[in-house]
């Protein structure tokens, strides 16, 4: 097919403030797509920028995609400040590799922050495939909690907050250790900050439990040609080989998201920072 450009026009039909920094955007697309859980879209705001955002949900019949967007910088800031119901964005995707789903598996899902987004869509799809779900959600403070009731409908859900206002006081990891000690899971899925993912990977590795994680790097082309989103030393590309990877890659990773995410000269110097 000869394309005009790969962007599907999309109109915001609903915005929900989830926490101080995080909002949920329900957007109606002009064309149907078929995202799988874990895949992401590139969201283009003309004259502002283009960023990768995971599918938090997809309502096929109505061509509605749900995006959960945390305010971090230029583009996400612009969206939160300027976008209203009726505002337009342009979506290219779905891109990347999705989570693996095994029928009837006993699954543990864990995540924090906007990492809940892909997990929510995953949880829905897992249920469709008759999986049993245990869900662990971690938040910084009580005021950061969101989506909990939506998850409770899908499976047995536990929460941790560092200030202890809701659920267990502590982090995801505290809950994880307890849960993993009392039961075996066929599959663990995790999504959140990379330090957290590494800890989860170590635990799962020790317990010999398969783990899939969703990873982040700066995304430029999104189609596996520019090399920006590389994970060292494997040479795997987040946009193409990921964003969902086997948790094992976290055990040997060399360039971490914290280094990679700085949109400064540092990003481009990733080669150098690895060397040290």
């Amino acid at each position: 097919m000869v394309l005009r450009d790969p962007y599907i026009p999309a109109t915001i039909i609903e915005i929900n403030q989830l926490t101080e920094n995080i909002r949920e955007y329900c957007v109606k697309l002009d064309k149907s797509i078929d995202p799988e859980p874990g895949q992401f879209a590139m969201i283009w705001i003309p004259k502002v920028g283009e960023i990768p955002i995971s599918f938090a949900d997809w309502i096929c019949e109505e061509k509605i995609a749900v995006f959960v967007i945390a305010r971090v910088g230029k583009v996400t800031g612009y969206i939160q400040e300027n976008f209203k119901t009726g505002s337009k964005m342009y979506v290219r995707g779905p891109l990347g590799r999705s989570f693996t789903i095994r029928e009837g598996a006993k699954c543990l899902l864990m995540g924090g922050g906007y990492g809940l987004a892909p997990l929510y869509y995953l949880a829905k799809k897992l249920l469709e495939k008759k999986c049993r779900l245990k869900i662990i959600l971690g938040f910084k403070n009580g005021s950061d909690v969101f989506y909990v009731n939506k998850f409770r409908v899908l499976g047995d859900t536990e929460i941790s907050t560092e200030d202890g206002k809701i659920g267990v006081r502590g982090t995801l990891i505290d809950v994880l250790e307890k849960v993993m000690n009392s039961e075996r899971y066929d599959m663990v899925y995790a999504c959140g900050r990379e330090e957290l993912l590494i800890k989860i990977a170590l635990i799962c590795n020790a317990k010999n439990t398969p783990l899939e994680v969703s990873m982040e790097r700066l995304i430029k082309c999104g189609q596996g040609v520019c090399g920006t989103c590389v994970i060292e030393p494997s040479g795997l590309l987040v946009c193409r080989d990921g964003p969902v990877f086997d948790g094992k890659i976290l055990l040997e990773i060399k360039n971490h998201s914290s280094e990679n995410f700085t949109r400064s000269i540092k990003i481009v110097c990733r080669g150098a920072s690895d060397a040290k």
Partner: protein
Amino acid sequence: MLNKPCTVDMKVCLKSLHLINPTVLTSGVLGVSYSLMKRVEEAGAGAITTKTITKEPREGYWNPVFVDLGYGYVNAIGLRNPGVDVFREEIRRAKKIIRIPIIGSVGGRDLDEFVYVAEEMLEAGCDSLELNLSCPHVSGYGGDIGSDVELTSKIIKEVKSISEKPVSAKLSASHAKKNFIEKYIDAGIDIIAAINTLRAMVVNIDSMTPVLSNIVGGLSGPCIRPIALAVIYDIHREFPDIPLIGVGGVEDWMSAVEMILVGASAVGIGSAIAKKGLSIFKEIVKGLEKYMEEKGFRSVKDLTGYIHRN
């Protein structure tokens, strides 16, 4: 392998550069880190060209930087690279684990920058250099240099004077002219790679804006192959002795055959990786081998430029 003798010789020589097969990763695609270069070697490439490297780091342009049009792509990455001082280390590390040749793509705004970057790249262990005289969307670099034939000749002469390794010139379609190339050959160029992307833009009529943040970018992919074929055909007809790397729209073994028939000794593979991934290298080598067997060619060399003799 045991019961079928390997009758076809896939090796090619670009002057003193020896390739196990004629597929070359083209500049700007994945050649940004040692680990990616390693993956490209494992995928079966005959050689790797690095991203174009400049003296200072360059952040490149903001997103969107890459637009898929179905028949081709328009990109404006903006020569994003960490600068040669950092990239030198990447090459050193790559050289330790990679056996196929690494061609360092050299960028610059003037003679001094070209020479500086070239020197560093050579010291880091590059097996060859490619001078980027053709990137169409970074003002002061690439095509802006390539349009000035005198400056370009001087750059070639200077780089050649410090390099024992073969040096190639990466040309744009609009500068691949007889009178330009004559001068490059006089200046000592060893290899010509052509073509780079063509200056292009994509417009979104719904938002009434350009799609690329940089507004203009470069067109690559299948749709520029007819242009690249004519360029390689023209150069090979005029200068049959200079080895050519045919770049532009190579997307499968058949397009590699087309490139070689019109005069390329090797073919560059770039944006096709967006569609096909790294398996494209083995696919091309296998398909080319089978084609040559069927047509009765013993070596890629015999196939190079065959259309001029047929």
